[in-house]
């Protein structure tokens, strides 16, 4: 081997060990950034919920006026739509269960338990996929028509709110995938607790927002 020269970046000869140690990243900035990112989603849903409740109240006032005048009235959610509680309730319980597995992932990362950490994240992703599956089932079951001739904007708002929540689940699952990648690529999962804890913050908020959707749209109708 003597006399052989290698490029400093010739990784076939494992000179990575000669490179300087990596910079130690500053902890906690990710949590702060994720909190800001999550707050954006909370405000977005706040606007959607406000528009939904406001439209629903206006619609009910109009219908009360029509009823007082002796005219026929129509409901906020068209009678042709089939709003059932089974799917949303199962989704709520599924998401509540996912909070436990999310905490399992954080716990495993903290204790450098890569196997359980990745297993917890995979279970978490399965819960997310199950909820998306249920939402699609519910969309088909609802049978809501966006350009309904009755004049109610319920269908548009319900689709907007539920589809936005599906988008939030997809983003949460991308964060989980990112945490899983870090776990698989790292020598010690303990170094990446901030990543999985940030993903957990976003996930818990997503669950909380679905709880509001469940009550606002499907319970109170």
């Amino acid at each position, binding site marked *: 081997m003597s006399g052989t020269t290698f490029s400093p970046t010739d990784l076939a000869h494992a000179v990575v060990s000669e490179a300087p140690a990596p910079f130690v990243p500053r902890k906690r900035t990710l949590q702060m950034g994720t*909190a800001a990112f999550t707050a954006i989603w909370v405000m977005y849903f706040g606007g959607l919920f406000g528009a939904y409740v406001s439209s629903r109240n206006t619609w009910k006032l109009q219908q009360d006026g029509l009823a007082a005048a002796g005219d026929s009235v129509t409901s906020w959610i068209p009678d042709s739509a089939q709003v059932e509680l089974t799917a949303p309730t199962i989704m709520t319980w599924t998401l509540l269960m996912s909070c436990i597995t999310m905490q399992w992932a954080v716990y495993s990362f903290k204790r450098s338990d890569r196997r359980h950490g990745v297993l917890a994240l995979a279970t978490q992703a399965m819960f997310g996929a199950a909820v998306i599956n249920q939402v699609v089932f519910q969309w088909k079951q609802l049978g809501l028509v966006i350009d309904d001739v009755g004049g109610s904007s319920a269908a548009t708002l319900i689709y907007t709110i539920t589809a936005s929540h599906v988008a939030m689940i997809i983003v949460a699952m991308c964060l989980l995938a990112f945490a899983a990648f870090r776990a698989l690529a790292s020598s010690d999962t303990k170094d990446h607790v901030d990543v999985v804890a940030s993903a957990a913050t976003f996930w818990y908020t997503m669950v909380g927002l679905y709880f509001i959707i469940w009550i606002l749209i499907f319970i109170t109708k």
Partner: protein
Amino acid sequence: MFTPGFKLFGGLAALGLFGAFIYGLSSGDATGPDYFGFVDRNAIIGLVSLGWKGNIGAASGFMVLIFMSMSAALLGGTAVAFRDADVESVAELGDTPSVMPFAQRPTAPSWWPATTAVGLGVLLIGLVMETKAYWIIGLVLLSAVAIEWALTSWADRSTGDETTNLALRDRVGAAFEIPVLGLALGGVLALSVSRMFLWATGNAAVIVAGVVSVLILAVAVLAVFRPQVGRRTLGAIVGIVAVAVIGLGVVSAVIEPRLGHHDEDHGVESTVEGE
């Protein structure tokens, strides 16, 4: 005890909550049964139950203020829990409390954020226009970005030397990038040539096939017999040939997508329907 971040966002949360209650009271129906002769009972019930029962006035403003309060509370809670991510408190977490960690490690320039924006745009356009090809391209772009960006991010953290990190990233990435890109380029070239064959008729198709084959052979012969030709020059020649073939494929597909027996078949069907 309370960090500046908590004070800012905690104050904003309190302001939002207070504002929501004032807004709910002032925008509600003032003609209902009162407490103390001036406060509407239904409004109080509505505000306390966050609209579950009673009256919250103009709902949109009330909800937006409540959610503003919740968002600010989330930020304030995080700020106080993590001490505003303050550098000194973070340093205390490390093995050497006197060493202040960098806020941002040096990273190589990356195209992935811009590519994400393009992928997201194409996906949304595809969904809105209900064009399957667009949203599939968008999904493929976003999936590729997810893998590549994660790989780049991992490599950037590997060592303290940017050049070594880049080489490490290329070494791991090339294992799947070159086969996948090669397959994709081969597929696009085959598709382009097939469009040209469909456009050409009879002998013209043979001539097109001959020209394309000769072009490929010429580049290969050049690569073998003129090894002094630089990699960049050879890459440029291959690139020009590939772009020319793809361009001609696109042009021929646009000019005359289908010729010959397809139209004849349609003509027969039309005749039968006409009868």
